[in-house]
């Protein structure tokens, strides 16, 4: 009985993670501009990874391996958004026709990026 409940919870978590990852992939291919794509890619990473790994942890039972998996979640939560942020900065710096593709809210920030530190 307990095993069945655990399996169902793990299945639900994994399926939710899969759904998030799938929607992120669709977003990456559907959006036109790189910044919108980064928006999709950087968001689905965090939510999808935590759901998938939690599903694995629940399905396997809590022990030392689950602790390691939690560390993996921490590392990926640290690195994935930072890489998305860096790609976004590079795109702002090198794209000279940013206004054509999207609405620029903060002109001053973009100019500051382009001129460099």
């Amino acid at each position, binding site marked *: 009985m307990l095993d069945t409940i655990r399996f169902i919870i793990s299945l639900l978590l994994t399926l939710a993670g899969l759904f998030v990852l799938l929607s992120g992939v669709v977003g990456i291919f559907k959006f036109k501009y790189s910044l919108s794509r980064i928006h999709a890619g950087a968001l689905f990473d965090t939510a999808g990874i935590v759901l998938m790994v939690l599903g694995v942890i629940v399905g396997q039972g809590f022990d030392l391996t689950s602790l390691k998996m939690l560390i993996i979640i921490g*590392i990926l939560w*640290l*690195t994935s958004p*930072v890489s998305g*942020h*860096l790609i976004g*900065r*590079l795109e702002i*710096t*090198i794209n000279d026709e940013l206004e054509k593709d999207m609405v620029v809210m903060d002109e001053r920030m973009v100019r500051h990026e382009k001129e*460099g*530190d």
Partner: protein
Amino acid sequence: MAKIRNDYEHSWWPRLLQWLEDGSTRLDDELTAEMDESREGHLLPTHEDVAAHEAKLEERRNQKLADELAMYAHAHEWTRTKGAKLANWAYRIMSVVICVSIIWVLLQTAAYLPPFGSPDNPVNNEVSQRYIEKGMEETGAVNIVAGMILDYRAFDTLGESNVLFIAACSVLILLRVSSDKHDPTSVHQLEVEADDRMYEPKNDIILQHTVAFLVPVILLFGVYGVMNGHISPGGGFSGGAIMGAALILYLNAFGFKRTERFFTFKTFKTVSVCALSFYAISKAYSFFTGANHLHSFITPGTPGKLFSAGLIPYLNIAVGAVVCCTMYAFYTHFRKGDM
């Protein structure tokens, strides 16, 4: 037959014979013709002759040019329309043919492979049996793979480390820019390289904070991988790659000024050469004593302890240092042209 006779008559021997017999008629004829021309006053061409000749030449040249241009235009037109279509078709057909042939070759190879897990497979011979049964006892390494690559086949691993070192040397030869401030060419090259990096995000505060937290962890993990290569999965190559990746991450976040404080070209040279020579010398000692059945102070020790398995941990450290330095050197040279 007639051709052979013609060839014979035109070769030098019969002509010589003919000349000896009754003089060279052809030479005489040509000489007289030239004399005739000069006698008629045609030795110096007149003004009109030259003009006519030039006009004729000009006309011929123009004609040739026009022909050539027409040919080029035709070729250009052809490549744009018919040729493009043909190339497209050829490309498609060739891609399908190449794909199918590669698939066929691979499938044929796979069909000849021995069945998976069968005890009669050629891999299950006395070599692997010996490694599995006596590996821990003889080398002292719990990780059989470490015992294999750094003890039984240490010579092979030395070759691999040297391959990495030689690759690093080739990259140095091809990409290194001399940082000589007085040489105008090197100054120009350095400027070009710096221009290449102009648009990279610099001094990113988010990245710097993340890296300040992550790099020590990654480095520690790399050191753990190297040091425990003979006990758990890991080893010089993987641990060294992790350490090199940590250095590259640090460089990306903080720039060359910060990394140059602890890692310069001199460090690279010293560490690589020292590690490789230590590897070669220690393994030479081990091979010498082993082959001559001499007493060696290297013992396997207690398997599972950190300082056990004879030379393996130290060789792992040497390999890890070489791999780490090589990765970092590759990265810096492809990015800056110098360290």
